[in-house]
């Protein structure tokens, strides 16, 4: 079987930073696998500013932040980038199988870094009674539809949960001419950064209902309205507070969860509550020579932290390879 010194799974901010740091620390054979047709990961759809304040001391958009890394990587011949490459299998010996158009490849990695990111939480969705009409989107999917595909998923929007992506999308929908009726948050405070409440909601006078929950989504083929009520300390509906909001679209923005099926498959010890690896030190896992970084390791507020910690993972991998017999 083919053996590579360092394989990195995921070409988002985590994988990019890890690859660069590993190279800078002496690794000369790096394979970077990305399932999409571009490097950059989720940054490509995050066209808003707010990235790089710590790392670059400049306020960049997501794609600008990504390109600073992509341009460097493209000039380093020791880093082989394989796009449209989806890893489908991983063993505890760090043998991995990936598919790409027209090919399936299995190889072993002496060192392996997983930068597989996260996905949007949808668990709470199931707890919202009502029909299953069209028009309900995870906020990040709506972001992709607008910013990458150029499609506007709806005209009258209610956002459930005040995670950062939901707040960012409230502004984005408003700028695109849609009407954002409300952001509904069951907790006492916004889940997202306060700066996003200010610049995405307050700037456009969009209402944030704290301590409120959606009781029901109505609509036959398409969403027609939602029923909302205020909740008490036990998150139970306060009688007499119900109201309805007409809308054709509901966005769900209730947080993110690490995406770690591959390391689970390989038998890495997992923390079931957070869906991240059990880890004694930053990025380490129960399998020697296997690191997890970025949002797959833990959910970060800002990408600068992902870059910093993932670079550390790249450095650890380089050290590990140097010490191999």
């Amino acid at each position, binding site marked *: 079987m083919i053996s590579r010194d360092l394989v990195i799974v995921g070409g988002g901010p985590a994988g990019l930073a890890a690859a660069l740091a590993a190279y800078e620390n002496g690794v000369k054979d790096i394979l970077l696998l990305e399932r999409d047709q571009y490097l950059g990961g989720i940054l*490509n759809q995050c*066209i*808003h*500013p*707010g990235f790089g*304040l710590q790392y670059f001391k400049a*306020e*960049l*958009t997501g*794609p*600008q932040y*990504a*390109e600073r890394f992509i341009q460097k990587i493209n000039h380093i011949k020791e880093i082989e980038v394989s796009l449209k490459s989806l890893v489908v299998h991983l063993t505890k010996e760090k043998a991995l199988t990936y598919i790409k158009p027209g090919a399936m490849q299995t190889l072993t990695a002496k060192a392996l870094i997983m930068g597989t990111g996260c996905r949007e939480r949808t668990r709470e969705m199931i707890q919202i009674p009502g029909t299953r009409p069209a028009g309900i989107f995870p906020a990040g999917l709506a972001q992709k539809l*607008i*910013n*990458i*595909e*150029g499609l506007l998923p709806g005209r009258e929007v209610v956002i459930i949960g005040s995670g950062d992506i939901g707040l960012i999308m409230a502004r984005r929908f408003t*700028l*695109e001419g849609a009407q954002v009726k409300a952001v509904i948050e069951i907790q006492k405070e916004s889940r997202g*950064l*306060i*700066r996003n*409440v*200010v*610049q995405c909601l307050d*700037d456009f006078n969009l209402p944030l209902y704290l301590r409120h929950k959606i009781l029901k989504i109505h609509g036959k083929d398409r969403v027609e309205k939602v029923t909302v009520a205020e909740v008490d300390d036990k998150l139970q509906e306060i009688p007499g507070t119900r109201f309805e909001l007409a809308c054709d679209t509901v966005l769900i923005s209730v947080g993110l969860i690490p995406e770690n099926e591959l390391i689970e498959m390989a038998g890495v010890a997992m923390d079931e509550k957070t869906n991240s690896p059990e880890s004694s030190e930053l990025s380490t896992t129960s399998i020697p020579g296997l690191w997890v970084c970025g949002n797959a390791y833990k959910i970060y*507020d*800002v990408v600068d932290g992902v870059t910093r910690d993932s670079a550390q993972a790249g450095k650890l991998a380089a050290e590990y390879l140097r010490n191999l017999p």
Partner: protein
Amino acid sequence: MIKKLTCIACPQGCPLIAEIGQGRVSKVSGNKCPKGEEYAKQEIENPQRVLTSTILTQGLALKMAPVRTNKPIPKNKILEAMSEIKKLRLNRPVKVDEVIIENFMELGVDLITTRTVD
């Protein structure tokens, strides 16, 4: 007059208290760094935001090209700027940070791309 604000210049989001006299900010407190004071003055005297959006492409690898103003523009110009951006079409490959429109809407800022689009 006293006005409470939240600094949005970084993710810390410091709560600020600005003392205002004759339409101008005379004192700012609550900021953890000098940027907070700058922000409070700007926000009260002439609030500004960076605008980001996308423009439709023709014949390029990506359907939408992300763009931004390279500097903040007055808050009250944001919606007008959006309708200007919506009218644009991009039909040539661009590099990241390439100027699409110089002195956009005479605001003294440039509209630039934020991604290489082949």
